Structure formats: structure tokens, C-alpha cells
């Protein structure tokens, strides 16, 4: 079997806060192959964005990151020097952020920023870089690409800016793209177009992608693999089909019940909810972090929770099938 492009084991992120340590990410494992799309889905504060920043080596200095393994195509990222990381970032792994306005420099033209992204890493002439920039802008569906190069970010609409961000991330033909909520700020029509574009480009360039989102609709349509994150842990991982069709963790099922399904949920009916709130991640956390909100919690949930299931569809719960059959029988 092919070696994964990215292999992460026991990634842990601790943030010192007043009065203790915030365990933002608590030992997560995943593998990603070339050309594959992994969606990390979770709610605010679940640690999904920190995970992506940790992979890129972009965490703040006071944040403590550790991992047994964080290997990108043979390079161990946990021990890589800042110099190695700089050479990787933007060239072989790039990132697309949620806010295209804050991640583009307002004082430089689109062209300058695109050309710099390539020339920083590759010995190409300005003319060649410019040609590549035009080619990519056209590829991401921007009309009159050549004339856009002299424009500034504020002259573009949100959808166009996000496309420029994508073009910039693609300048060096990276092997891995990490996109953190790339379409959350956009209209649904533009969202569909951008997601299609990312997917098609990923196929074309055999690019691996980590897509971070809270939108379950996006996940279902884009992901090959899904990782559901709750309170810093991956509570369920598997293929998109498995996770959506046979969700095993009670949290995953809870999330799916919260969203109205056109054609399935009766209009105006009461939507499912997950009672309670996310627990504080400051201090020692033992047992299942979801137990305070889980309808199936038992005293045993306070101790360590085993990982169950198959390697290709695993979940973290003490119940054999995460009580899926009980819930189905009740419904």
C-alpha cells in the first residue's frame, strides 16, 4: 500500500491560560493519501483550526505542540527547523483561510502577491511567474485575468478574493492544501462553485486536501474521509458514506439531527438539539468529554474511552455501536 502523504499520531496542543492549561487538541491521529480530501468537522472551539495551524507550523510561541509523529512525505514536521518549514509552506503545503480580506495584503496588487508566492520558492523569472498567475486566475474562473493583476484586493468582491486566495495557494502546485472554512463567508451559489473548483483542481493535480468546516452539507459533498472533532478529540473517523449513513458516535448523530433536511424534515417541526454546552478544556479531562450532553451516558463514561470499530470507521464510545440501534429503534 502507498505510504500516506501526511501521517499524524497523537497530536496534542496545550495552551497555557490563567489558572491552568487548556487542552485544545488531545491526541488526534489521522492519515491522508495523495489526492484525498479529509474533512475535519466540528463546532467552534473543538480544536479544528488549531490542528491546521499546527500542521503548518503557524501556532503562536506560547502554544505547546507535541506529537508522536507528524510526517509529511518523509519530513518529520515536529522536529523540522524553521528554515525547513518555510521551504515547505506555500511551496508543498499551502493554506486557504476563511477571511480573504484579512489574508490578502491590501497594500499590494493581486499580481504582486501572486508572483511573490511563486518567486519566493522557485527560481523563475517575473514574466514566467506572471504567466503562471494569469493561467491560475483563469483556472479559478476569473475573467479578464491579465487586467486583474494590477487590481488591489479592495477592488474585488468576496467571491473573487477567495478565488485569488485559492490561486495563490496553488501557485507552487502544492501536494497538500489546508483550507479552513474556505466558503463560510460566501453566498451559497459561490460556495458551490468554489467547492467544485477545489475538488476539480485537486483531482487534476493529485492534491491532498484537508478541509475544515462546521457545515455538514459541505462535508458530505466534498469529503473522501471525515473526522468529527469534539472538545479536542476525534470522536468518529471514517469514509463520508459510512459516517453519514451509519453515524456511530452519539455526537455525530446529534449534529445530523440538528439540521433541517430538505424533503425529509417536516417543515416547521421541532429540530433536534444537543442539550448542554461544550465542557471547559482547562485542567485535566478524563473520560468522554461528551458524556454531560449524551443521552446514553453511564458512570463508566468517566473513565478512559476505548477506540472502537474498524480502522476505516472508528469511534470513541463505551457502547458497542454507540447506541445507534437503540436510537433507531426509538425513532
Amino acid at each position, binding site marked *: 500500500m502507498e505510504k500516506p502523504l501526511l501521517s499524524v499520531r497523537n497530536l496534542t496542543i496545550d495552551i497555557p491560560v490563567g489558572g491552568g492549561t487548556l487542552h485544545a487538541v488531545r491526541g488526534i491521529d489521522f492519515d491522508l493519501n495523495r489526492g484525498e480530501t479529509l474533512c475535519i468537522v466540528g*463546532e*467552534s472551539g473543538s480544536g479544528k483550526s488549531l490542528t491546521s495551524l499546527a500542521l503548518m507550523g503557524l501556532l503562536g510561541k506560547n502554544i505547546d505542540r507535541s506529537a508522536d509523529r507528524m510526517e509529511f512525505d518523509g519530513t518529520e514536521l515536529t522536529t523540522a527547523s524553521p528554515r525547513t518549514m518555510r521551504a515547505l509552506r506555500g511551496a508543498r503545503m499551502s493554506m486557504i483561510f476563511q477571511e480573504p480580506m484579512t489574508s490578502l495584503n491590501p497594500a499590494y496588487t493581486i499580481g504582486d502577491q501572486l508572483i511573490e508566492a511563486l518567486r519566493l520558492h522557485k527560481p523563475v523569472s517575473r514574466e514566467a511567474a506572471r504567466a503562471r498567475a494569469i493561467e491560475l486566475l483563469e483556472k479559478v*474562473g*476569473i*475573467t479578464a485575468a491579465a487586467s486583474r493583476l494590477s487590481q488591489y484586493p479592495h477592488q474585488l*468582491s*468576496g*467571491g473573487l478574493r477567495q478565488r485569488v486566495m485559492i490561486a495563490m495557494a496553488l501557485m507552487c502546485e502544492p501536494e497538500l492544501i489546508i483550507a479552513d472554512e474556505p466558503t463560510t463567508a460566501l*453566498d*451559497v*451559489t*459561490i*460556495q*458551490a*462553485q468554489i*467547492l*467544485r473548483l477545489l*475538488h476539480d483542481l485537486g483531482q487534476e493535480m493529485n492534491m491532498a486536501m484537508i478541509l475544515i468546516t*462546521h*457545515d*455538514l*452539507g*459541505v*462535508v*458530505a*459533498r*466534498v*469529503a473522501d474521509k471525515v473526522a468529527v472533532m469534539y472538545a479536542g478529540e476525534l470522536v468518529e473517523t471514517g469514509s*463520508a*458514506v459510512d*459516517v*453519514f*449513513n451509519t453515524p456511530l458516535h452519539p455526537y455525530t448523530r*446529534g*449534529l*445530523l*439531527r*440538528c*439540521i*433541517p*433536511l*430538505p424533503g425529509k*424534515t417536516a*417543515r*416547521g*417541526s*421541532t*429540530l*433536534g*438539539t*444537543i442539550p448542554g*454546552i461544550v465542557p471547559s478544556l482547562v485542567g485535566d479531562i478524563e473520560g468522554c468529554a461528551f458524556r454531560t450532553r449524551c443521552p446514553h451516558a453511564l458512570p463508566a463514561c468517566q473513565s478512559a474511552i476505548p477506540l472502537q470499530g474498524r480502522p476505516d470507521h472508528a469511534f470513541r464510545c463505551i457502547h458497542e455501536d454507540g447506541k445507534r440501534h437503540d436510537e433507531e429503534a426509538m425513532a
Partner: protein
Amino acid sequence: MTVQTTTSAVLELRNVTKTYRVKQGLFGKAKPLTAVNDVSLSLPRGEVLGLVGESGCGKSTLAKILLGLEAPSMGQVMVDGQEITAQDRLSLARRIQPIFQDPYSSLNPRKSIFDIVSLPLRVHGIGDKAHWDTEVRRILDIVGLPARVMNTFPSQMSGGQRQRVAIARALIMKPEIVICDEPTSALDVSVQSQILNLLGDLRSEFGLTYLFISHDLAVVEHLATRVAVMYLGRIVEESDVAGLFDDARHPYTQALLKSVLTPEPGLGVPDTQLGMAYPNPIDPPSGCQFHPRCPMAGAHCKSVAPRSVPTSHGHVECHLHDPDSPMYDAKVA
């Protein structure tokens, strides 16, 4: 109340138009931008009108006009049969209240929850401190917040709790109409469902009428009873909720519905066939304003603006559905 109304509509818009003058560059000439273009809508009491459309289509301008924050350039807005320009701000505020998208910026961070929620009572000079206290407790209980949050500040609350505070503030004056401008799009899904359930419960309990602005069509389908689709300031289709979601007529509505990503794996991302560009509202396209993005557009659509034609469940502005238009037969092909 002795005002007699000719219609059961609690809120009615008649040919409302709002035009701004926008300067093009530093020395450019100001050009008119029609944010809301000849909109007529009527909202019967107790209904939820979902208003959908892309950013820049004029949804929020329409909301501002309804709240009395902007005056329409032309046309009339009637609340209970009375024109709102004839009413003063205070009495209008008793009847119409907003809930905004972002509960982080819509609540004053320096004020306690008690101050925030009781402010409408104080502004209107209703009751004394003891009365405010009772009322705030009552409304917090209704929106599902414990009374102890009264002395806390917005920064101590989660997004969902803040949105409950915003709802409490909107409802304390017992308004008839609530304008919800993307009330759940800043919230996590598990919190979103709680707020949607709450809005649904409050509506049936207090007979509220909502204008529900959202870009999330699944949410609109769930909560709304009627839906209006807005494009470049015009309502291009209006219908009851079943008619719109089961039998959309306008190609734009169809494209919007197609772009909804339901959580069903294996279907992939749909191709909306909308092309890229949302047109510049300062320089809108001729004829039917949707024609540059419309997969069905013909020569007639480029030159002649469509009129509003009735459908079995509402009305639509599209040549494909106008029996007098040469495009009428094209939709079959």
C-alpha cells in the same frame, strides 16, 4: 385599536424603491444605485416570510426600510394599514423589532444583560425599576435563559446565549413583527437548531410575524410559510413555501435550490450553471436583469424586462412563464 384595515396583511410594501447615489472613484460622477427596485410584498399576520438572495441583492436594505432606519425613495410601507413614514420612530419600534446576525457586535459589551434587555422599556418610559426587573425576568425565562444572567455581561456568554439575549431584547416590547436578519448564520449547528426551535415556539405562542432573511435555504424552508426571492433589488419570485421548494419557476430560484448542499454523501457538489459574476448593481443588465447568468435566456430576455405573472402559488417575473412572451414556449424545449 379602531384602525380599520382593508387587508389582513400586518405588513405591506407597495412599489418600494430605494436608490442611493454612489460616487465612482474620487472625482467620478455620482451614479444611481437601485438597491430595492419596485418591491411589493404583503405579509399576513402570523406568517413567516423568508427572504432569500445573494449578498448585495438588497435584502438588508429592505430590512432597514422596514425598521424605519432608511426612508424609501418611492413607494409605501404599511404596518397594520398605516404608513410607517407617518408614524414616529418610537411607536414604530413598538411594533417592529430586529434580530441581527452577529450577537457579538449587536450587544453593547459594557452593559449588563439587564441593561441591554430592559433598554427598550426605559427608552419608552414604561414602568419603574421593579417593573423592569419583573419584565426582564419574564422575558429571559421565555427565551430560555436563567434569571441569574441579568447581572452578567455579553462577554461572559456563548454565541447562542447572546442570540437569546438579542431575542429577549427584541420581544420585551411585545412587537407584532420581528425582522430576523440572518439570525443563526453566526452560530454552530447545535446552537442554530435551538434558536430556530425557539423562534418557531415564540411565533406560535405570541402570534408573531417574521420577516426571515437568510441565505441558508434549508433553514428558510424549515421556518418560512412564504418565500420571496430577491435579485438585484427585485422580487423575482414569491410563493408559499411548498410551491417554491417543490415547484420553483424562476431559473434563478432553481439555481439557488440546486446550490443547497444537503448532508447526503456521494452526490458531489452541484453545478449551478450560474456562471460567475453577480452583476454590478450600478450598471445592471438590460431587459431581464438575470439574463447574463440565465441558462435559458433568449434574445427577448436581453431587451425586454419581464412583467410579474401569477403562478398557482404566488408570482414570478420571468418571460418563460408569461403566456404573452415569445419565450413562453422555450421552457418546454
